[in-house]
């Protein structure tokens, strides 16, 4: 235990954040007449300042681990760019506006217009379906359900979040396809005058199926985040609303929802981030067609991530570069969405420690 006096002597006393570092300089309290020789490790020894002690080493190690996160994010951008650039230079079409995907040809031509469109369309529809239901469940768990029901139901929602996406994809393709096809046929029969439900078939493996599967997958994340936010509503606000004669719904509308608004927006954006990046479930359920169409029920649809999973197997060097370039676009989109969501959460400091 000879290294007890440590670098803690360098820490100035009375710094903000006292719980973090309590090691105060011992200078004033301890006898200044301590033996000047080598420290005996006793109580009277003055802390000696070591440059390469365990303390400095451990501190450096953990700082490096923290910095590793930044290094990884920068490295992702750097390596994706470095592999994407050669493929983009070989591309004979405009990467951003071209719709087809033939990067393995002798004259590579590929673009992400159709893929990006499919990605955004399927994610947005998934959110339109999932968000009202998720908010409903969150309100049920936080304000309606008795505690005996709310705890296990919340647990089930958390389990739903843990189910791998490939399982949802498989379920969507093998089981959910049939009801969605029936629904599509019905919509097409009676509502074909609305362009999104038009077309002559075949129906089934469509944007609608992909979006519905996606909505089931983003449901847990939106639910658990917004439940977290709803539960943090100050009881005073709720009781004040009720005391003024508000019904339960009026209380929720006037006290709970406005208080949790930033949290709800952030939860929706995190769900959007999850939906944009979802790969395997969409690769198994979408019809994989490279076109831009608002038709929801005809076989078709594609997304950046699903395209990577589907075409990676037969990609050559340029093909891989092209897929990496499309992944770079996806990375940029999700990074922006996630940063915006986190910035909203961070503005409300109350949510910082609970919204995971």
């Amino acid at each position, binding site marked *: 235990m000879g290294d007890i006096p440590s670098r803690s002597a360098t820490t100035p006393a009375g710094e903000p954040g006292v719980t973090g570092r309590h090691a105060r300089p011992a200078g004033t309290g301890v006898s200044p007449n301590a033996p000047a020789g080598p420290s005996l490790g006793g109580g009277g020894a003055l802390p000696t300042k070591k440059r390469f002690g365990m303390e400095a080493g451990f501190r450096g190690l953990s700082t490096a681990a923290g910095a590793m996160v930044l290094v990884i994010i920068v490295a992702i951008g750097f390596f994706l760019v470095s592999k994407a650039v050669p493929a983009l230079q070989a591309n004979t079409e405009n990467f951003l506006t071209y719709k087809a995907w033939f990067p393995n040809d002798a004259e590579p031509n590929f673009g992400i217009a159709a893929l990006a469109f499919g990605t955004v369309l399927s994610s947005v529809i998934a959110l339109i379906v999932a968000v009202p239901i*998720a908010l409903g469940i969150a309100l049920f768990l936080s304000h309606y359900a008795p505690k005996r029901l709310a705890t296990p*139901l919340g647990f089930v929602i958390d389990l739903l979040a843990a189910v791998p996406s490939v399982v949802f994809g498989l379920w969507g393709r093998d089981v959910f396809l049939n009801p969605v096809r029936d629904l599509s046929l019905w919509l097409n029969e009676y509502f074909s005058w609305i362009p999104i439900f038009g077309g002559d078939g075949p129906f089934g493996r469509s944007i609608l199926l992909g979006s519905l599967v996606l909505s089931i997958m983003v449901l847990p994340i939106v639910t658990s985040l917004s439940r977290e936010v709803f539960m943090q509503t100050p009881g005073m606000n709720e009781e004040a609303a009720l005391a003024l004669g508000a019904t339960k719904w009026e209380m929720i509308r006037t006290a709970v929802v406005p208080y949790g608004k930033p949290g709800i927006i952030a939860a929706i954006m995190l769900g959007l981030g999850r939906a944009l990046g979802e790969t395997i479930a969409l690769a198994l359920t979408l019809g994989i067609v490279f076109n831009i169409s608002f038709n929801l029920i005809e076989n078709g649809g594609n997304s950046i991530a699903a395209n990577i999973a589907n075409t990676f197997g037969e990609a050559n060097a340029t093909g891989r570069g092209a897929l990496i370039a499309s992944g770079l676009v996806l990375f940029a989109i999700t990074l922006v969405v996630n940063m915006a969501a*986190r910035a909203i959460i961070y503005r409300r400091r109350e949510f910082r420690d609970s919204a995971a």
Partner: protein
Amino acid sequence: MSLLQKELSDVVMTPSGLRSKRLPVAVNLVIAVAAIVVAAALVLGLSIGGWPLVAVVAGILYLVGLFVAATRVEGRRSARNKIMQALIYAACILAVLPLASVVWTLISKGAGRLDGNFFGSSMNNIGARDPLGGAYHAIIGTLEQVGLATLMAVPLGVLGAIYLVEYGRGRFALTVRFFVDVMTGIPSIVAGLFILAFWVLIVSPWFNNGTPRFSGFAASLALTVLMLPTIVRSTEEMLRLVPGPLREGAYALGVPQWKTILKIVLPTALPGIVTGVMLAVARAAGETAPVLLVAGGAAAINFDPFAGNQSSLALFVYQQAGDASRYAPDRAWTAALTLVALVLILTIAAKLLARRNRLS
């Protein structure tokens, strides 16, 4: 006295007089039955759909009827309250339906190949007409990849969390914290592409005479990227729960900060940290896309994660789902059941452990 009685004569001060009027439960039931009957007559009579449509129309009719009746008896505000409550309950039922369907399908279809052969053999030399074949190689791959990823991600993540809680101050720590949160949202396919560009295409040729090589280790690197932010976040939350006086006591006894962290803070927070790690492991075990991109998938057993293609359970499910063989769906569903069982056991164990945690 007489004046008081006179004043109160037209106000009946009984409990029923004080309470506002309520819609009786019987009326509620009548509306429900009427809605179902009308919906069935409407839909089946005009033959514009089947029973699902009846349910939807009945639900809408019930809500409308309830709103009208409640407005009559209780007033508009109370009626709106009732409708919203009904909608919120409906949202719950709507969300439970697909979950129940997934569970039912997993069990009914997954039980088909739940035999010794499935867990004891690989897909090597299994043709399209061969009903056998199993996921042994995929289970080995999953265990090795997730194990290696855990070995890399846990020290890094725990140290990162220690930095954030114990050492980090100021702008840099805030930046790290922010990007840890942002990193949780990175799509798994992007992590896979990153390792593909960085490890498989640039670094692995150095060890393999200049040709890129897929490997299970590359997959575990990608899983590390995905697990790291989750572990940092959960560990950070647990470390913040460790009471300050514990640290102060150690400092007062002259224990240096690094030793306080290792001997006092970490052991106190250990159950919570283990919970977070298990949740991260469960998530990583279900990832398909990164394994597909950097481990390549294989039909044969490969015990060496550092050389040659490897498969994983999730990837096995995906590949069997895309297989044209008529025996492939059975294998896919059984593998999916195995995967879900693995993930759920880990998750439930983690949650039970969290419940026993003294800190939270």
